[in-house]
């Protein structure tokens, strides 16, 4: 008798998880954080939300609060003053959470490598799941990065942050 209860309990959990995953993958909500970038990436992120690129067709929506967000889209080389805020925003997000680093300077510091007030990339502060290079990356590349994340989650091939997704330049 006990065994049967455990079994139904597990099944119920499994179904619940499946529903949760299904809904998450079809409506991924994002928050955007600028950790000291030049704004080039930020306007391209915004462009992906507007009619030409329209990332909302994949269920992705930009939210104002980290507590509502599944993905953190972060730009910039992380300035010393922004570091604490980046950590705080990341900590406020509910798990599971994914981090997308947009732009060369969010990956390595880019043009700002060696500046006294930058730390040289998002992954110096928080684990990153998707890297989108480019200065700035085109909106298509940003969409591609997020879709690769979604596909990896759907097919169960998601291995980040140990092996993060890197958007290749031959995305066209």
């Amino acid at each position: 008798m006990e065994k049967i209860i455990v079994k139904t309990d597990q099944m119920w959990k499994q179904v619940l998880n499946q529903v949760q995953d299904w809904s998450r993958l079809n409506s991924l909500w994002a928050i955007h954080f600028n950790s000291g970038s030049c704004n080039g990436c930020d306007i391209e992120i915004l462009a992906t939300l507007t009619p030409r690129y329209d990332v909302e067709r994949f269920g992705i929506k930009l939210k104002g609060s980290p507590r509502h967000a599944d993905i953190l889209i972060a730009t910039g080389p992380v300035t010393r003053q922004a570091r604490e805020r980046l950590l705080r925003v990341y900590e406020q997000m509910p798990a599971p959470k994914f981090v997308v680093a947009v732009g060369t300077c969010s990956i390595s510091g880019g043009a700002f490598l060696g500046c006294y007030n930058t730390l040289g990339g998002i992954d110096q502060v928080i684990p990153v799941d998707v890297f989108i290079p480019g200065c700035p990356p085109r909106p298509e590349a940003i969409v591609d990065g997020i879709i690769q994340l979604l596909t990896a989650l759907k097919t169960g091939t998601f291995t980040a942050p140990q092996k993060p997704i890197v958007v290749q330049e031959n995305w066209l």
Partner: protein
Amino acid sequence: MNDEQTLQQAEKLLAPFNKETLHPETHRLDVVVTSEDLHAAVTALHDAKWGYLCAITGLDNGPEANNLEALYHFAQDSVVTTLRVRAPRSPAASVPTIADIIPPAVFFERELHEMLGFDVKGLSDSSRLFLPDDFPPEVYPMRADFKQDQPVPVIEVGSETFPNEPTKIGNTFIVPIGPQHPALKEPGHFEFTVDGEVVTGVRMRLGYAHRGIEKAAESRNWIQNLYLFERVCGICSHIHATAYCMGVENLAHVEVPARAQAIRELVSGLERIHSHLLWLGVAAHEAGFDTLFMYSWRDRETVMNILENLTGNRVHYSANVLGGVKFDVDLEHARTIKEGLDYLEGRVRHYLEVVTTDAMLLQRTRGIGTITRAEAERYGLLGPTARASGVIRDIRVEAPYGAYHRFPISAIVETAGDLEARLVVRLKEMLVSCFTLRTIVDNLPAGELTARMPRKVPAGETISRVEAPRGELFYFIKSNGTENPARVHIRTPSLCNWTSVLEKAVGHQLADIPMMIAGMDPCFSCNDRLVTVVRPNESRTWTWRELREYGIEHYRDLKNISEA
């Protein structure tokens, strides 16, 4: 009055304080004054209404000279008068504050204080403006002995001194906004003191995007720096590169070919259209008019296509090289540019009609945040924000540079000074840009694209002022004859326009704040920010989105507009 007379007038005004006069360039006058005389000298210029304060540059002349210099740049038309104050490095170099005469100088002085360690006597607020809160005291990044790779302790969680949580003092509440303002070029952190609904005080903290570009520039060569300065701002990258190139070409005495200058103006015109359309969308979003946001961003893609077609990139176009431009404009390009401009002109005319007739939008813009002409001059506003208040402050007209002699533009001025006027000014500027760009494309002067640049730039100092989409952009470049610049100082227009937000927010409804920030500081690039607001009666946390919706609701109730 021509340049000669303007210069003579300045020289006459400054004669009583003059210790040494230099004429570094034909349109410039450098006057050495003592720090005791500085206040009186600034008063003399100010009382005679000679020009306005452009920037204050701090210089460290190196350990051998053992002195620091503060350069106060005043500009009238194309003439720049610089008051140079020399002070020994130790004990702390001191200068008196001039913020009592010129209020916006307080930002420049705070920068001078924290970057070079000047002791500014009488400075009302000497808290950190750009550097992180835990930056070691008495370490000054722009001093020659500071190395950018020297270890500086990393900020620890909880060490921010600016209040993060809403706090209550007596009957007033302090409402922090930001710094998750990815929107602003400088992600600002504001602290609004509210009494009920009405804002009674504002403070601001910048520096979340301070990367240390000016210091980095000193260790990179002239060509590498071109790409670094493009990345000061992603929205107006071309104009930053243009200002830098103009300065370096000036120092090296290189004449840029006419065709290259015309192409520079062409790209900066396209950039202005893209920047203004971007801003229109964000301002509309803050007012709750998302349809306009989406439409204007859709149309912005037309300009982005043109830019990509011309330069191969959408955002950092890298159109400039030292001595010229990188690409040519052929007939095929000319055709696509004109097609795009025709379409955009129609759309901009439509938007102009929308922003001046749409009843819902007018309630959020007409008569809100009004800055009178006198106030605009007092706060030292620049660019479209100043022009909406009736002040003609446009470098393209006041001190034409590059191809603006050949292809002049007309300045757009509105007198109302409210948010509506700022929308109208920017929209009309796009129409002017469309017209000028067509003329340029049709009359491109023939010739080379680049002139030869020397690898080492002769020693000297130069100032280049250009009109960015947001107002006057100021570059001070000093070379000591090597492959690297000795000092580059940048003053962006937003820094001057902040004063308008800080002064004008007081007395306004909290519901107007999103629009006020959007309208006054035009450098917005993203739409969703996080804000925490606690109102006196109900202790509740609000997001920026809720605040925005609250603003929309507030006006709907106020005017009894039904949901339809």
